[in-house]
C-alpha cells in the first residue's frame, strides 16, 4: 500500500448523533414514568445534591455550621427565624442539617471513589487472569468480607483513632471487597465473549483487554452497585459518628447531631428529628434509584 494514495483523514470522531442521544433520554424518561419509585428516588437525590452544592448560599446562619455559640437562643422550637429550631448552644439546626447534607455527600463520594479505585482494578485483574492469581486475590477479599462490615469499620477506627478521615478510610476498607467481587464476576463472564477472544488472538496486551474491552462492558452493573452503596455508606458514616468514632464536634454531621440531640429527645423533639429525616430520605432515595437502575440497565430484564 503506498502512502501517496491515502485518502483524506477521517473527520474527527464526534459523539453519536444528537438524535440518538435524544432517543436514549426519551427512553429513560419513559422508564422513570413507569418506575415511580426510581423517579422519586432520583428527584430526592437531585434536590439533596443541589442543597449540598449551594449549601453555604442558602443557609440562614452560615456561622452556626461550626463553632458559633448563642446561648440566648438555645433549644428554640421551629419558628420562622429557625425553621428546624436550634440546639443546646443556640445554633440554627437548619443550617447544620444543610451543612450535614454537604458533608454526607462528600463522605459518600470520597468513600465510594476510594472503594472503586481499589475494588474495580482488583476484581478485573482477579477475574481476567483466573487461576492461582484469582485464588489468592479472592481469599484476601474474603478475609475482609468475613467480618460484618460495621464491626470491621469500628475496629479499624478504634485502631487508627476516631476522626472523619479515619472513618472514611475504614468504611472504604469494608466496601472495596464488594466492588472487587462484583467486578470479578463481570470479568469472568465478559472474558468468555468473542471480542475478548479476538483481542487475545491479535496479541493485545492483557491490561489493554481489561481496561478497553472488559471494563466498559461492565459499567452498567457498577453504576447500580454505586447507587446502592451510596445510601449505605452515608448511613454507616452517620452511625459511626453517632458512636463518636467519626466526625468530631463541632462538625455538623447528621449522626453526630443526633448523638448530641438524643439527650434532649423527650423535651426537644425537633433536635434529632430533622437530621434523622434527612438520613432516612437519603438512604431511601439511593435504594429506590438503585433498584430502578438495576431493572433499567440489567440485560437480563431488558434486552438492549
Amino acid at each position, binding site marked *: 500500500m503506498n502512502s501517496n494514495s491515502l485518502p483524506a483523514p*477521517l473527520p474527527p470522531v464526534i459523539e453519536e448523533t444528537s438524535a440518538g442521544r435524544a432517543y436514549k433520554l426519551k427512553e429513560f424518561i419513559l422508564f422513570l414514568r413507569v418506575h415511580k419509585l426510581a423517579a422519586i428516588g432520583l428527584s430526592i437525590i437531585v434536590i439533596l445534591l443541589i442543597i449540598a452544592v449551594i449549601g453555604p448560599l442558602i443557609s440562614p446562619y452560615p456561622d452556626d455550621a461550626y463553632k458559633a455559640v448563642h446561648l440566648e437562643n438555645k433549644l428554640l422550637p421551629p419558628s420562622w427565624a429557625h425553621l428546624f429550631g436550634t440546639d443546646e448552644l443556640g445554633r440554627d439546626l437548619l443550617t447544620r442539617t444543610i451543612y450535614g447534607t454537604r458533608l454526607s455527600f462528600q463522605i459518600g463520594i470520597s468513600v465510594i471513589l476510594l472503594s472503586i479505585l481499589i475494588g474495580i482494578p482488583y476484581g478485573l485483574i482477579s477475574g481476567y487472569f483466573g487461576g492461582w492469581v484469582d485464588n489468592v486475590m479472592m481469599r484476601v477479599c474474603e478475609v475482609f468480607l468475613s467480618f460484618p462490615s460495621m464491626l470491621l469499620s469500628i475496629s479499624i477506627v478504634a485502631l487508627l483513632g476516631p476522626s472523619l478521615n479515619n472513618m472514611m478510610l475504614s468504611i472504604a476498607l469494608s466496601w472495596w471487597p464488594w466492588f472487587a467481587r462484583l467486578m470479578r464476576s463481570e470479568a469472568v463472564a465478559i472474558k468468555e465473549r468473542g471480542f475478548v477472544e479476538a483481542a487475545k488472538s*491479535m496479541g493485545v496486551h492483557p491490561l489493554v483487554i481489561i481496561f478497553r474491552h472488559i471494563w466498559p*462492558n461492565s459499567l452498567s452493573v457498577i453504576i447500580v452497585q454505586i447507587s446502592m452503596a451510596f445510601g449505605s455508606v452515608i448511613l454507616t458514616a452517620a452511625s459511626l459518628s453517632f458512636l463518636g468514632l467519626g466526625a468530631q464536634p463541632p462538625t455538623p454531621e447528621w449522626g453526630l447531631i443526633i448523638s448530641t440531640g438524643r439527650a434532649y429527645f423527650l423535651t426537644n423533639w425537633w433536635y434529632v428529628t430533622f437530621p434523622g429525616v434527612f438520613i432516612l430520605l437519603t438512604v431511601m432515595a439511593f435504594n429506590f434509584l438503585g433498584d430502578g437502575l438495576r431493572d433499567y440497565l440489567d440485560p437480563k430484564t431488558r434486552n438492549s
Partner: protein
Amino acid sequence: MTEVLVEIDNLSKYFTVRSGWFGASKTLHAVDNVSLSLHKGECFGLVGESGCGKSTLSRTLLQLYAPTSGTVRIAGSDISSVTRRVRRRNTRNVQMVFQDSYWSMNPKLRVGDVVGEPLRTHTKLSAAERNRKVAILLEQVGLPADFARRFPSQLSGGQRQRIGIARAIALQPELLILDEPTSALDMSVQAQILNLLKDLQEEQQLTYLFVSHDLSVVRHMCTRMAVMYLGQIVETGTTEQIFAHPLHPYTRMLMQAVPDIEGNAELTFYDGEMPKAIDPPVGCRFASRCPHVTEKCTQENQSLRELDGDRSVRCHLAM
C-alpha cells in the same frame, strides 16, 4: 506456487471434561493427531459437522489454546515458540474472521476502533495515520469510510462481517483463518461475502484456512481440502478430486447432504448418532454410523493412508 506456508504436524488438543459434579474426569479428543500442510496463496477447506473440532483447531493455530501435543510451523517458525518475540510475531501473522461477527466485536467500541485495534497493537502509527489506514481497509471491504464512526450494533450482519474481514486483513497476515465466516448470513449476503473474500485473496495473495460445515461453499472457494470427523482428519485431497470421487464413507455421507442450487439443504438425515470424542474407543470413529462397517473397523485403529496424487484417506475399505 506449492511453497508450504503452514505445517501442522501431529497436532492434538484434548480437553478434560467432567460429567456432573462428582463424575470421573474424561478426556475429550477435540483435535486428535492432525497433520496438514497449507500452501502459500491457496484457500484450504476444512469441513466437518459441527462439534468435530474445527474451531478448536483454529483456536490452537491462533494460540488461544496451547496444543496438548504436536507442532505448528508458520513460514518455518514454531508458533508455540518459547520466545515472546516470536510468539508475538505469530499473533500478527495469523488472523481470524470469526463466525459470529456480533459476538466478536466489542459493542462499546466504534467500527474505526475495532478495525484499528490490530494496528494499535502491532504498529506505531499515529491516531491520524491509523484513521487513514482504517478508511482504506473499509474501502477494500466495500464499505464507506464514515462507517468508522458507527457502532457494530448499527450495522447489518453482512456489513459487520465485512468489518470483521477488514480487521483481520489490517496487518496483512500470512494466514487468514475463516471460521464459518458466512454461516450466520442470508444466502444473498453470503455470496457477496464469499466474492469479497475471493477478490481479496487474489489481490493480496492471502492464504486462507476456510472452515465450514457447508460443502458447497468449500467447493466454490477452495482448491484443496480436508474432511474432519470427531477430531481426526478422515480424507484430504484437491477439492476437484474429492468432489469427483469421495473415498471415505463419511465424505460421501456429507456429499449427499449438499444443498441444491436453491440452497435447500437437507442436513438431518444422517443415520446413527453423532458421538462425542470422549475417551474414544479403539477402531474407526465413524464405525457407529458407517453403512459399510466390518469387523476390522471396530478392532483396529485406522491410519491416514497416503494415496496417489496427493490424496489420503482414513479407511481400509477405500481404494
